């Protein structure tokens, strides 16, 4: 009984902080999502709207398009980040001269604030000033993210990969360092080739780490705002207006807090469903493979 009280006492500061910075704002956003709230409207306070915001949302083509765009961005960035991260982690586990230096330097993009990353990439890609359009023009590619929707999209993908792959690599490195050597040595003694070791020992043992990295990257990519905002401002047109940017435009310049909150809640719901489905599929696949 006493130990239980002590445990709750020790947990209390964490629970209080989590409640204040996580749970309370969430409940408030949920509450605002069921209201109309535009500070420059005739009635500037909260006006109960029931599910009207959500009803409007399911017909909002701009929002649905932004959600689809965000999903496409997430699929591109996260899949490349996972593969690259795994390869880099594998390489950085090998012993070679200067390994410590490379381990430190590859994580440098993580230390840069997203807004600065966006601004730096903006400088890199400005036509007539940036080196990227200059060199691509030299090899015959007309590169201009100001008017080419596809180029703008893939530039945001590239920037995000550049910024966040080190995070995946570091996560995998931590996981790899904790793996025991015995199963690998045993497999090699038994004559398993590199692919079999990778498929049947390495991947299953690293699965919890892969899942954590995957979910964190999916959540982060789906709600991206700052980097892309600095680089393209969501343009050209709506080519890079991902869902986070779309919500930002509704909440701040248009001051439609009720509708913006409903969009945020729906995005959260969407992220939860995607992660849960992924977890279920992966867990189910593992169980079926085991039986």
């Amino acid at each position, binding site marked *: 009984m006493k130990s239980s009280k002590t445990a709750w006492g020790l947990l209390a500061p964490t629970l209080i902080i989590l409640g204040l910075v996580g749970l309370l704002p969430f409940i408030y956003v949920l509450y605002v999502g069921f209201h109309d709230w535009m500070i420059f409207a005739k009635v500037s306070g909260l006006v109960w709207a029931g599910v009207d915001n*959500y009803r409007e949302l399911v*017909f909002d083509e701009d929002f649905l398009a932004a959600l689809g765009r965000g999903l496409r961005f997430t699929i591109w960035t996260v899949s490349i980040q996972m593969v690259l991260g795994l390869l880099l982690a594998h390489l950085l586990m090998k012993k070679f001269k200067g390994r410590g230096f490379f381990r430190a330097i590859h994580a440098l993009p993580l230390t840069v604030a997203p807004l600065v990353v966006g601004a730096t990439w903006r400088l890199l890609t400005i036509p007539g000033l940036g080196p990227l359009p200059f060199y691509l023009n030299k090899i015959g590619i007309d590169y201009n993210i100001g008017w080419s929707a596809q180029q703008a999209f893939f530039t945001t993908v590239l920037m995000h990969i550049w910024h966040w792959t080190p995070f995946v690599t570091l996560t995998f490195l931590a996981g790899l360092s904790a793996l025991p050597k015995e199963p690998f040595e045993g497999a090699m003694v038994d004559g398993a080739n590199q692919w079999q070791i990778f498929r049947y020992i390495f991947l299953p043992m690293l699965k919890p780490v892969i899942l954590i990295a995957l979910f964190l990257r999916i959540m982060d990519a789906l709600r991206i705002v700052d980097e892309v905002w600095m680089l393209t401002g969501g343009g050209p047109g709506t080519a890079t207006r991902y869902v986070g940017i779309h919500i930002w435009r509704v909440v701040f310049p248009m001051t439609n807090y009720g509708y913006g909150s409903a969009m945020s809640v729906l995005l959260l*719901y969407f992220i939860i*469903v995607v992660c849960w489905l992924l977890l279920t599929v992966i867990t*189910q696949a593992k169980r079926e493979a085991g039986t």
Partner: protein
Amino acid sequence: MEAKKTNKKREPGFLRMETNLFDRIFIGVVIFVAIHLLWMRFLESSISLTVASIISLVLIFVIAKWG
């Protein structure tokens, strides 16, 4: 004691997954929201949203009990 019992993992129901009560309620709530959103998009012009709420609540109960 009873609460502890119901939250224990048990033999998979019709969901064919190992779940505890919290998992099943979570799945029920996810389906509840999905049904309402799809209903508002495709059916609300002809059938009231209250019907969706009743169906969803029944589904939550069914999933929590036999899922």
